[in-house]
């Protein structure tokens, strides 16, 4: 067993950026271990993605044809099983994304590969591959190994590795597609309805609220505060889930990315991985939270331990 296999992800005909990050991780590991890097893509016409995957450090691109281009868990599971059988990698890197959640665990549970999810550190030592992930709500790091496993499958946290930018010249090969009769059927994609005209990705200044607001009636005063400050009002998942603000205002993995944001004020947001995925790149993050141990303080530039209502009211006097 040798080599590193990366399985790319695409949606609506486009490769997702996390694919490049996984290749970045694999190429760095190749430099450390000498293991060749192979990148696979599964789809209705997988060759269309091959050109964009010809990156520096990649040795081979593998295509697997599928009956549909959209993700299906059983097609992906069977295809990755076929890829592992064909190339016998010692390490398989999958993105830790919604699609992967649907097929990685069934694959490894059946086949007995080493397995860890949401990994942000990978190394190899005398015990074989070693992965680092977080535990207890991101408060500790956990190093796991995989004794006796010839192949280890890791799902890698988006944003954890830098993508490869330079082009390379890998060979391309097709791997025979396994026959699968999917028991679920992709009917289509939807964007949520009922969005107001808010533009989270385009906003330079966002004031976001989280669970700390407590109840729906309290949302209005933060809307007013955001308006007075000249900020766009954003929120974390629980606020959107409760219907207190539209989904279009949700910042994070399943919401919007604060792509243009330069100043982000997080009020009453403890900072889940999913929320931070949408804003941790922002240059100036200010967090206001009653809990001095809140995760958000680990990525914020400025922190205020305090009551968001009190701070909010005082802040109004200055704006």
């Amino acid at each position: 067993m040798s080599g590193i296999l990366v399985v790319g992800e695409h949606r609506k005909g486009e490769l997702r950026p996390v694919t490049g990050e996984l290749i970045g991780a694999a190429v760095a590991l190749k430099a450390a271990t000498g293991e060749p890097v192979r990148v696979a893509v599964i789809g209705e016409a997988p060759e269309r993605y091959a050109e964009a995957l010809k990156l520096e450090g990649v040795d081979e691109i593998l295509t697997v044809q599928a009956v549909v281009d959209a993700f299906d868990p059983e097609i992906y599971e069977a295809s990755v099983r076929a890829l592992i059988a064909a190339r016998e990698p010692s390490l398989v890197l999958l993105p830790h994304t919604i699609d992967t959640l649907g097929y990685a665990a069934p694959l490894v549970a059946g086949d007995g590969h080493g397995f860890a999810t949401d990994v942000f550190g990978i190394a190899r030592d005398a015990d074989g591959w070693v992965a680092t992930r977080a535990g207890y709500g991101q408060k500790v790091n956990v190093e796991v190994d995989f004794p006796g496993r010839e192949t280890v499958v890791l799902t890698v946290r988006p944003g954890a590795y830098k993508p490869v930018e330079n082009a390379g010249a890998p060979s391309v090969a097709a791997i025979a597609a396994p026959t699968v009769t999917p028991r679920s059927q992709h009917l289509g994609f939807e964007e949520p309805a009922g969005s107001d005209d808010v533009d989270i990705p385009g906003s330079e200044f966002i004031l976001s609220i989280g669970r700390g607001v407590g109840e729906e009636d309290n949302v209005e005063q933060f809307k007013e505060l955001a308006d007075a400050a000249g900020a766009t009002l954003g929120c974390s998942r629980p606020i959107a889930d409760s219907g207190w603000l539209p989904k279009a205002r949700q910042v994070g993995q399943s919401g919007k990315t604060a792509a243009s944001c330069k100043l982000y004020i997080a009020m009453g947001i403890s900072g889940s991985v999913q929320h931070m995925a949408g804003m941790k790149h922002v240059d100036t993050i200010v967090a206001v939270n009653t809990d001095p141990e809140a995760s958000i303080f680990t990525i914020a530039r400025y922190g205020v331990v305090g009551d968001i209502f009190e701070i909010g009211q005082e802040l109004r006097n200055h704006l």
Partner: protein
Amino acid sequence: MKILVTIKQVSSLDEDFEIREDGRDVDPDFLLHDLNEWDNYSLEEAMRLKEGPGGDGIEVVVATVGPDSTDEELRKCLAKGADRAIRVWSDELEECDAIGVSRVLAALARKEAPDLIFAGVQASDHAFGATGMAMAGLLGLPHAAVVAALEYEPGGKTAMVRRELEGGTYASVRIDCPAVLTLQLGINTPRYASLRGIKQAAQRPIELLDPASLGMPSDEIGAAGSLSRVRRMYVPEKGRAQMIAGTPAEQAARLAQIIKEFRGEA
């Protein structure tokens, strides 16, 4: 028909905590326990079907893998209306990873033969996001992960699910049943237990099983059935915000200054 809801007792860290002597976990004295946040939604979804049209005959069974203390979480589910609660445990299961747990739950599901299985997308403590889907794989059942909406008529051969993807997109999927679904936060609004429900749940039996009684071979139990091993747990060096001290008025004044600097006014 029967819906199996698999739940987990999660652990969070006390403000101060110590790593266990072997360096592989936190000393259990410093752990606080609760029902996994996602599991409130899974149970609610089962109750929603049970209380909805054609749901009269639905039996909602909650199950978990864990020691005695886990009964507390099962009772929370009984208090909200679950019909039966099952706990599987033996000391060997202490060393299970998520896949090790899924093997136990799959063995239980074979015995219970439910028409639908609901699990949370992930648990709030270790966030593997693997148990529910691994169980589906082991059972050979159709599956969908991260379901944010479900339409199902009790007894139906298919269900319509809306999978929540990244960036606010959803995928609509029709899936054959029986199926295993992992359910996302926000799929419904979980109820609170009534005082009466809580009192009654305290008296209800919890069925206790062990892996042997489920017919599990020894090479599937605990560490042997797991696919990873914790080597070390440690507190990482983390960045720390520059803390703005003072009274709320002083803190707000500094915050206002940061805003004005951003606006180019200061």
